[in-house]
């Protein structure tokens, strides 16, 4: 879920979620109490139509196309862009290029198509209507009812994940402790005023507000911002006389970046986007110049600091991945990588970490490796990758940090559907064999 508001501190308040298809689906499944018999009949006939298997099949075909195009679209765009555009959306414009298996060069014209939320919601209505009018609660229907209940749980689980799950990363150099989680799919412009050694005042502008041409004014900000260009992904390139540099102040005078296509969903190296922005800053009509801010300069990469002085106050401004703090820290005491003998192919890599939570009095050593995560305070920490920091030559281990309150739903759904299929198809098989014996 994107943030859309300026906020103070690291954890901005989330706006209320979008409408969930469950609500209107339930309304459709339960026609309101109507005294008139004609109206009741009318409602019932509508329900019958909604329950049609034709609709089911049409919805299956639509979902096939959506999933297929949503896969092809990942050749040109990042997987999460595609997910938000195709699957977690009511409506999507599918480019002709994607419709024709990425064989067309023209990327401009599109066809409208129902998104994942529309198709999923419609499936739910269709399913509930079918159960309301067609399926009687009977033992020989138990299998089907279980299967469909499991599917509903699974769809519900995906909605819960969409609304409440949170993914981030902890990048920890060997010998260091880290207490914040970085969310590489979201950026933020942080304006940090150093008050004293222990305390910073931080104002954060979410990256989603940095739309090209947007003007951002807020009493909490020390200056007004006008977005010249925001790049979701960028390349840090060599200064070249031929390139027109838009920056008039700060590091942008020496460094230059260029917009790059988003990292593709099928990228072999699974790299992440590195955003940059050219921003014009001003204060009450006084021009402060055009500045280049980039995640390249943030502590995730080059760790370069840009300061802006205003009335004896010093503000550090950085475009960075969204960060959230934890009240515990994780220290990487050691990292081991084991390769298959005689090759560079890793067989196993594992982080030896020390989990310290002073408030709770926790201090323990844990090993995190592939298929063996650590869970703490509702979050799960997975071994994701490892790299060597070229500046410090330290091994940096990246842990994937996930909070998903709905994690149990898929497990539940799997059990329910599996059982349902066993009952249903088992029943069919039994009847089939039985008939053969009778013959």
């Amino acid at each position: 879920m994107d943030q859309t508001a300026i906020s103070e501190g690291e954890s901005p308040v989330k706006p209320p979620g979008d409408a969930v298809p469950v609500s209107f689906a339930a309304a459709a499944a339960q026609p309101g109490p109507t005294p008139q018999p004609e109206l009741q009949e009318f409602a019932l006939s509508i329900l019958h139509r909604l329950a049609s298997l034709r609709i089911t099949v049409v919805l299956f075909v639509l979902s096939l196309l959506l999933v297929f195009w949503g896969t092809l679209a990942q050749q040109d765009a990042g997987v999460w862009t595609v997910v938000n555009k195709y699957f977690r959306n009511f409506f999507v414009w599918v480019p002709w290029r994607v419709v024709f298996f990425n064989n067309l060069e023209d990327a401009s014209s599109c066809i409208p198509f129902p998104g994942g939320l529309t198709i999923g919601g419609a499936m739910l209505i269709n399913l509930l209507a079918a159960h309301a009018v067609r399926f009687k609660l009977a033992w020989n229907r138990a299998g089907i009812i279980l299967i469909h209940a499991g599917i509903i749980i699974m769809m519900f689980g995906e909605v819960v994940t969409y609304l409440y799950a949170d993914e981030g990363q902890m990048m920890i150099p060997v010998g260091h402790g880290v207490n914040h989680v970085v969310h590489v799919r979201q950026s933020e412009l942080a304006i940090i005023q150093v008050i004293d050694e222990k305390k910073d005042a931080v104002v954060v502008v979410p990256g989603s507000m940095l739309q090209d041409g947007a003007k951002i004014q807020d009493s909490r900000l020390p200056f007004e911002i006008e977005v010249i260009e925001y790049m979701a992904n960028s390349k840090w390139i060599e200064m070249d006389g031929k390139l027109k540099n838009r920056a008039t102040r700060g590091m942008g005078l020496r460094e230059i970046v260029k917009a790059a296509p988003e990292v593709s969903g099928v990228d072999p190296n699974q790299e992440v986007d590195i955003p940059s922005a050219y921003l014009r800053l001003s204060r009450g009509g006084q021009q402060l110049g055009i500045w280049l801010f980039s995640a390249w300069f943030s502590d995730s990469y080059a760790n370069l600091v840009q300061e802006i002085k205003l009335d004896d106050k010093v503000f550090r401004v950085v475009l960075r991945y969204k960060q959230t703090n934890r009240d515990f820290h994780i220290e990487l005491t050691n990292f081991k990588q084991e390769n298959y003998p005689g090759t560079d192919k890793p067989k196993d890599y594992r982080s030896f970490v020390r989990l310290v939570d002073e408030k709770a009095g926790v201090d323990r050593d844990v090993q995190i490796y592939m298929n063996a995560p650590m869970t703490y305070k509702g979050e799960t920490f997975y071994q994701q990758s490892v790299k060597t920091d070229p500046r410090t030559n330290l091994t940096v281990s990246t842990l994937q940090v996930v909070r998903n309150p709905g994690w149990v739903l898929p497990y539940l759904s799997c059990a329910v559907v599996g059982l349902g299929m066993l009952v249903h198809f088992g029943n069919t098989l039994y009847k089939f064999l039985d008939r053969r014996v009778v013959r």
Partner: protein
Amino acid sequence: MSNQKIIDVLYRYLPWFAVGLTVLYFGYRMMPQRAARGEFNFHDFGRFPVLEKGRYKPMDTVARTNLMIIAHRQAYYDPDRGTYHSANKWLLDVMTSPASQDSFMKSMFPTGAANHPAWDYKVFRIENEELVRTLNLKWRDGLRYSINEINGNNENIGFLEAESKRIGRLEGKDRSLVDSKVMELAGHLHIAMELSSHFAPLVVPDENGGDTWKPFRIGIAEHIQKIKTGEADETETARVYLELLRKYDAGEKAEFNDILAKHLTALEKQKPSIMRAINLEVFFNEFAPFYHCLGLYVFIAIGGCLSWLIASWSKPIREAAFASMGVVFLVHTAAILIRMYLQGRAPVTNLYSSAIFIGWGCVAACLAIEWIYQNGIAVVVGSVTGFCTLIIAHILSLDGDTMEMLVAVLDTNFWLATHVTCITLGYTTTFVAGFMGIAYILLGIFTNMLRKEGSATLTRMTYGVLCTGMFLSFVGTVLGGLWADYSWGRFWGWDPKENGALLIVIWIAMILHSRWGGLVKHRGIAVLSVLGIIVTSWSWFGTNFLGYGLHSYGRRDGAMATLVMIDLGFAAIAGLGCMPLKYWQSFRPLSTMTGPSGGPGPSTPATLAAATSIAAGTPPQSKKAKPKLA
């Protein structure tokens, strides 16, 4: 009278004869190949243990897989003399043909350094006509050229080097077809050079018994240092290996065999467990079980078709095909078990093993279906799918060692055994259902076999397979989600491979719901099942060709185009199935019916009999009617 008796016996025992013949064939192929007296013992040289690409394997596998990559063959064929030689001979010749600038190796193998026997071997396969012209070569049947030919006037090697440097800087999508063929050839030459300069494979074991083995080049250099300091031991592997290659270089056959035998006997005592696996793998390589299964599946498919054509012999022929399919299936199973033992893994670890496992699953499912329905259709479908998947496996094996090591996240037998096996068996069911759909369309259009109950029977078979497929694909896909949740913290990531699996689930759900809603009947299910093959092939291969995702464990250049061509073929068959029923042999009114000979009037007795055989095949009337074998 006696003739009649023979025919009676044949009629009665034909299935047994088929089983006997199949067993004999496999027995013959399993017999170990021994070296001729007074010749180099190439077979035993193949048992030399090495460490390559992360696992212990016999030299035989190194020779075969590298020759497979370079020449697309597991043996060296000499086109001038028309003779075949073992891959081990090719490897030995490469290893004793040092490059002209490699003075270290030249000092060791003087004969090879003077003659370079391996440089004349026509093994390097160049299938691109433009590249052949660029290198000033003559287009040749067999497409294989020697190093000396490729080098030509001493300019080509430099040209290839410069080109591969240039192309190496390009991104995959910017490379032309010739570019990728240049890279391929340069890679193949590199393999040969690495073998000839002894940087690979790792033959000298770790002195401390660990995993850090060394290539011969380093091992022998260290050994020479030890000779200088007087610490050298003559039984050290590097020394033995040197002696062995020198005897080969000098053409001293008896001495070569002698050194080899002594060394291997010692190894059998020192490392019995490694040598057991090595010997098994050499046996497996020489037996080549999948290759022979592939051939036999063709005969079984022909047998199944014959059982429909020859009405009076329908039953024994069908049972014979069924019985020998059972035997081939046992060998197929055993071969998969041997691979599992050698790898210490669940059956499916990469694309290659998924192909042989899908083939296995198709045959297993069809044996079960044939057991129930006894109409020959499952025998044909099973052997055709078995054949097709093994052909795919064969093509995939051209990439090299099929028992490669797994990346860290896949290094878990639990999930490989559950999720991957379930998904692969799910693919199996959609393929079987799809080929049954093809059988429905072809038999319906060209024969009378779908008259009476034939159509309903075949549809019932397909429906049963689809229901199983629904269960396996769904459970497999969800298990994959649970694995992802367990390993990465998210159940569903809309990754291409995950989406591919989802497509199969939705596709089968769509077919089943269409049937339940009465939107499709027999023919509709057949057509949709055929299209299901396209959906499955997308999930199996197509998603891998999109680029590397989290799941991609195999990718080949130009493969997407091949996939599209094959899928168009299946789409054409499905299109054929949409032809109006009045043109279908099985469904046109009987008055206008024609026999397969094309003549007017009622169909020939053969087809009528066949028609009854498939319809009556539905349920065996009693226990007696069950096949005697299997």
